[in-house]
């Protein structure tokens, strides 16, 4: 695999947007051509090399390329937008829309991300080692068709309304999630190893949510189906006892499933 290293050399007064930073665009280009690629600074077009030092070995196909971003990238939006293959590794934090509309390949952020990470994701793998903001793996604002495939793993905590309108794929959160995870979701799997304050699966019509931590309060639109032990979903086994719910009956054709760990959650059982 050939590695192309982008090192941020200065900070911008406004966020820069870089949908062109992905192996699909870098493939078949020389380092000099990559330096000429367009990025957006507000409503101005500037060159990649205006903000980044570029070095490394170019390659012909995206599958052979790994892009490594060094420096304080916390003001960069849209890294890896629509990427289909190859790898991106961001050593620091990133701003909004990382991995937006991703279809394939692997994108790793070692730091934290802002909101809308993995929005409308269709495939591939997005891994965030730190925390992420609101609307992880959600739909575009206003749209009722959201993430349809791929895998997102967050090692830290996530904000509000993760997996909004999720229609497929898998999201694993190792930390806590804020309110309304899986709101409007119709399919796919959400696993939250930590806690959720409230409104898990609000208006969900399908798909599965597993909460292994503590839920402060639970929505009334769900039917309590009983306790299940050592459940298995899509090949993953979850040890321990879980309360099982079906809902959200606020919606027509409600057929979503929520498992909440028995431990620490006696207060939500009707």
């Amino acid at each position, binding site marked *: 695999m050939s590695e192309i290293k982008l090192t941020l050399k200065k900070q911008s007064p406004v966020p820069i947007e870089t949908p062109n930073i992905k192996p699909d665009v870098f493939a078949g280009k020389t380092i000099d051509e990559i330096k000429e690629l367009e990025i957006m600074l507000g*409503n101005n077009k500037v060159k990649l090399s205006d903000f980044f030092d570029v070095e490394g070995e170019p390659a012909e196909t995206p599958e052979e390329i790994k892009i490594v971003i060094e420096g304080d990238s916390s003001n960069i939006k849209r890294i890896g937008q629509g990427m289909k293959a190859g790898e991106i590794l961001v050593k620091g934090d990133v701003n909004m829309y990382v991995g937006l509309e991703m279809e394939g390949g692997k994108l790793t952020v070692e730091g934290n991300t802002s909101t809308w990470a993995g929005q409308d994701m269709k495939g591939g793998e997005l891994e965030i080692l730190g925390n992420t903001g609101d609307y992880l793996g959600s*739909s*575009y*604002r*206003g*749209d*009722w068709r959201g993430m349809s495939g791929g895998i997102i793993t967050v090692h830290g905590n996530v904000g509000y309304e993760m997996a909004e309108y999720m229609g497929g794929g898998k999201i694993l959160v190792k930390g806590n999630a804020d309110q309304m995870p899986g709101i409007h979701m119709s399919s796919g799997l959400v696993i939250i190893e930590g806690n959720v304050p409230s409104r898990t699966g609000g208006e969900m019509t399908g798909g599965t949510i597993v909460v292994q931590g503590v839920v402060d309060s639970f929505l009334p639109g769900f039917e309590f189906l009983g306790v299940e032990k050592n459940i298995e979903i899509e090949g993953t086994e979850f040890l321990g006892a879980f309360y099982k719910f079906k809902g959200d009956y606020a919606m*027509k054709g409600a057929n979503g499933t929520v498992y909440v760990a028995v431990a620490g959650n006696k207060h939500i059982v009707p």
Partner: protein
Amino acid sequence: MERIIKNGIVYCPLNGIDGEKMDICIKDGKIVESVSDNAEVIDASGKIVMPGGVEVHSHIAGAKVNVGRMMRPEDSKKDAEATNEDINRRAGSGFSVPSTFMTGYRYAQMGYSTAMEAAMPPLLARHTHEELEATPILDHAAFPLFGNNWFVMDYLGKGDIDSCMAYASWLLKSTKGYAIKIVNPCGTEAWGWGGNVRGLHDTAPHFSVTPAEVIKGLAEVNEKLKLPHSIHLHCNDLGHPGNYETTLESFDLPKGIKVDPVTGSRDTVLHATHVQYHSYGGTSWRDFESAADIVADYVNKSNHMTIDVGQVTLDETTTMTADGPMEFDLHTLNGLKWANCDVEMETGSGVVPFIYSAKAPVPAVQWAIGMELFLLVKDADKVCLTTDTPNAGPFTRYPRVMAWLMSNQYRTDLLENELHKWAQKRSSIATIDREYSLYEIAQITRSTPAKVLGLSDTKGHLGVGADADISIYDMNPETMDLAADYKMVENKFQKASYLLKDGEFAVKDGEVINTDLKGKTFWADTQIESDLYKNVLADIEKQFVKYYSINFQNYAVEDSYISKSAPIKGVSL
């Protein structure tokens, strides 16, 4: 400034010109007999020349259009254009509900120079005019909604046509409105109480008036005011299987009323809009089928009316109408987000996104019904091209609709490869091989709408004295097989070689080159100086105090809202 368009192949139905090679002379924004040798020459050899397109029914400005924009960011996302500072072109977005600037540019790029906003809530007239002011290039007008207005229902319930006429005269002037628009008469008012009307003989709640009385009464009012346009009717029961019976009964109502407009050459008393939505057979969505043949047959036998189609374009779009209860029905059908509102004393509206999927049975039949109407109505002087934009599809699909009409091959390819089988089984579309000529295309997009709108003195033709709104398309019917090369036809109609607006270049090579052009606002100017008018005004003021949330003095749209005012004369009593 003088210009001459040389050697074009000209189509101008109002003057009977069918593909003749001739020159068009322009001076000071008008078409003239001849120009001097100094005139700038535009070479149109091998190209089609037509009058600028005239849109008879669209939703492009006003409150509900803006609700459509606001509630659908995802529609804006999929179609956005950046600014171009070289030509002062504004950025814009929106596939089905474009922003105002993009609306103007895109109509112009297709060679259209005039567009009508077909549903203006009177109370929200200012907003509508503000948006039309921000829609570049196009001459325009807006139709205030009358069919659920409390004054109208009250006067017509009492059979007081004259007072209703005086009220209509006042309302058109106050809102700078152009024509009498009727949407689901009595039904939208009933929706204020959670209901609707079925057919033409239910009464509106708390009024003693039926849809039939509203339609007939307003048609009489329209002709007493000698307005340029006829009543513009969105029939009751829109979108319900089996509604064709209500449709035909509605068509019959204004028959026999004498037509004598002050301006223009209209000779019809009714324009029925988006008739595709009103030509449904069957009793439910399960046995849903086309009744377009019956409706077309009625239109063929009648001389008192015109229609526009509201062709389904098989896109994801945004529906919006003053027919509030219908939009709620639609929301319960597709489950998508919805907006609905009541406009006090006057009307209501609703907005719901909709996906007309070719693979789904009902949209496939809806597509076929629209096509049947175009192809079974024999005389293109009776039918106008619309998609009821954005309801059945955005106006940017007009070129595709034209190509469908001009090419049986295009339709057959669609029927055999893309559309659900219901299109063939539940309609007669597969048996129709008629193909529109360019002359007929010019009729449904230029001459027919201009005539029915009462604007044919200056719009929709290329005779001496007409506004120099001229579109030129780079295709040659003498050397090309347009029916076979339908994709080319579609592309050429999408991007006109030229659009001249009042003699100035608005579009060249498919791109807008002058974004500073500003259209006129047509509105209906009628004068009634009598005790009747004074009495009605006094009545209006009294009702304002009683019911409206705003003051009478603050109601009328000030002249400052209209930068290029173009009053069209009606009656002077």
